[in-house]
């Protein structure tokens, strides 16, 4: 994972609440078996007027000029500014991959959906929760004639506005540490292998019925009654 320390980047204001992962990356692009190739289809249904399919490039498509992503002001955006409950809906991590591939490193919103929020940290995308009044101010700033840059300083847990106002944000210290150091999450857990094995052995004693799947899987096809009475 790419470490995250500090960035200064342009803000893209997406003024909609409850943006769901079906909008961030529509399902027709989930057919890929790879982790890359999603950036061109970020917000596909809003960004283009025609229905996209896998493998097309943006210049073959009809742009929706009303949509903020196509606004010439925001072509270097690295920070997405959003409304509440960003990333709700499906668990698809492709949403995070698409944002990163497009160039977004930070999403700022008043609240996030749980699965999306945790997916962000696995990939080095920083989700920042800020209070409504600051979000309002940022929308106001970012919607001006000239796009604005913000500095996001993760070690200092600060967002620095163009007028030098500094806003502090909260972040779980463990997640912060992992992001800054670009740590391998699986590696961290595997370092505890022995404890997992010990737990598993005791658990097997306590709940033996959970450890007989291989045998059950071989069982003949079950005739479904569907009755729950």
């Amino acid at each position, binding site marked *: 994972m790419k470490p995250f320390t500090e960035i200064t980047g342009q803000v893209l204001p997406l003024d*909609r609440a*409850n943006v*769901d992962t*079906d*909008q961030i990356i*529509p*399902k027709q692009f*989930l*057919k*890929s*078996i*790879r*982790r890359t190739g999603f950036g061109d289809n970020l917000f596909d*249904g809003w960004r283009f007027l025609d*229905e996209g399919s*896998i493998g097309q490039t943006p210049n073959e498509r009809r742009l929706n000029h009303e949509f903020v992503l196509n606004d010439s002001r925001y072509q270097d955006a690295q920070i997405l500014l959003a409304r*509440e*409950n960003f990333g*709700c*809906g*499906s*668990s*698809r*991590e492709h949403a995070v991959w698409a944002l990163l591939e497009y160039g977004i490193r930070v999403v700022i919103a008043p*609240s996030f*959906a*749980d*699965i999306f929020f*945790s*997916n962000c940290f*696995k990939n080095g995308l920083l989700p920042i929760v800020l209070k409504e009044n600051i979000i309002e101010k940022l929308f106001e700033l970012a919607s001006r004639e000239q796009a604005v840059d913000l500095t996001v300083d993760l070690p200092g847990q600060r967002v620095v506005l163009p007028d030098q106002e500094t806003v502090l944000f909260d972040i779980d210290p*463990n997640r912060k*540490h992992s992001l800054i150091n670009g740590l391998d*999450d*699986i590696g*961290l*857990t*595997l370092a*505890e292998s022995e*404890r*997992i094995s010990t*737990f598993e052995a005791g658990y097997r004693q306590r*709940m*033996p*019925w*959970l*450890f007989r*799947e*291989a045998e*059950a*899987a071989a*069982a*003949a*096809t*079950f005739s*479904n*009654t*569907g009755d*729950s*009475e």
Partner: protein
Amino acid sequence: MSGKTLYDKVWDAHLVGQRADGQSMVYIDRHLLHEVTSPQAFEGLKLAGRKPWRIDANLATPDHNVPTDNRAAGLDGITDLIAREQVVTLDNNCREYGITQFDILDPRQGIVHVIGPEQGATLPGMTIVCGDSHTSTHGAFAALAQGIGTSDVEHVLATQCLVQQKAGNFTVQVDGQLPELVSAKDLVLAIIGAIGTAGATGHTIEYRGSAISALSMEGRMTLCNMSIEAGARAGMVGVDDTTLAYLKGRPFAPSGSLWDQAEAYWRTLVSDADAQFDRQLVLDAASLVPQITWGTSPEMVIGVDAAAPDPRAAADAQEADGIERALTYMGLSANQPISGVSLDRVFIGSCTNSRIEDLRVVASVVSGKKVAKNIKQALIVPGSGLVKAQAEAEGLADIFVAAGFDWRAAGCSMCLAMNPDRLQPEERCASTSNRNFEGRQGHAGRTHLVSPAMAAAAAIAGHFVDVREVA
């Protein structure tokens, strides 16, 4: 000290401990896999030179991409080559690692959240994960079941643990009796309408009360399924006789003395009488009417007797803007009564409502009637091959076909339209699925979420109607 909630109990039983960085490691009993969110996880595992921790905890099936017709052709029936590659990749990964898979030709294949319970692979007190947000479905069995992203799919494959923070406890208490033909689907839509799609974010919901106890397992699964639409990663219902009766005799469930041992433990899987919840919602089942979503989020929901909202009556400009946008997308006007809105297609299926009980209700509504002329397609897609076989054995399939429905093979189908079943732009659909987001059932398609009974009545009438007036 106060007692424990059901969620507390299952969490505590699986807590391996704290990792060096202070995060909790939760042991995972069951990992369900499907073709869309697993390929990158297997690839990551291989690239890192890692092995799955415990093969027998995994169970796989293809569901999102599979076609619902021409199924005897197996893989060759998948005309979309990119989709086919994904299904083949799952086959290959399962074969390589020795993971049990119900493949495209297996009679037990189906939507991952339907086959888990059907096989007894979902058991009380389990921790269950799947790279799919509707994993919450399995909470109906007092399991802690959560959707995860692909990185976590890889993490669970490699370590048998999920690293996370404990959520809060939210109780939804529903007492009273649901009126006839008003179902668990109407109940969960009403709950989402009441608390919003972010209402339970950061919490695990436990559904309790006499109306919940009275639900069948199918109904409880419908309820827990849509917990994610209320913002909760997991929804749960405590163990009772209904739970145990459903599980007894299923292939992956224990039998004999192991069953007795398990049952003694499972009986403890209810919240203690003095358990404390962080938040609660209380609802009266008796006053509920059938629900229909009018907009592009599951929280945009009204009773069948109500009308689409008026943006001018919104609390603030942002809400007005959201209502306006949704009305435009859906092709509805402010204050338009939902009953009478004409439809193009009907979809009965998805992990929310594709079980045998759902199909029985549909059959009871449509028996001896015909799908209305203006309906271009009325699709019924069973949740699994076994549900399909049973519906055929019970004569339900004949009723559907005689009424003019398309009777298909199992899969996700038009719930998310990754396979060929989809809406054309601006087509309006009554759907028993769980998401009405823009484009969910096809580019520019218009989805209204309803119960199976309401979808059946709409198919016959050609427009929305209160099923209680026509059944």
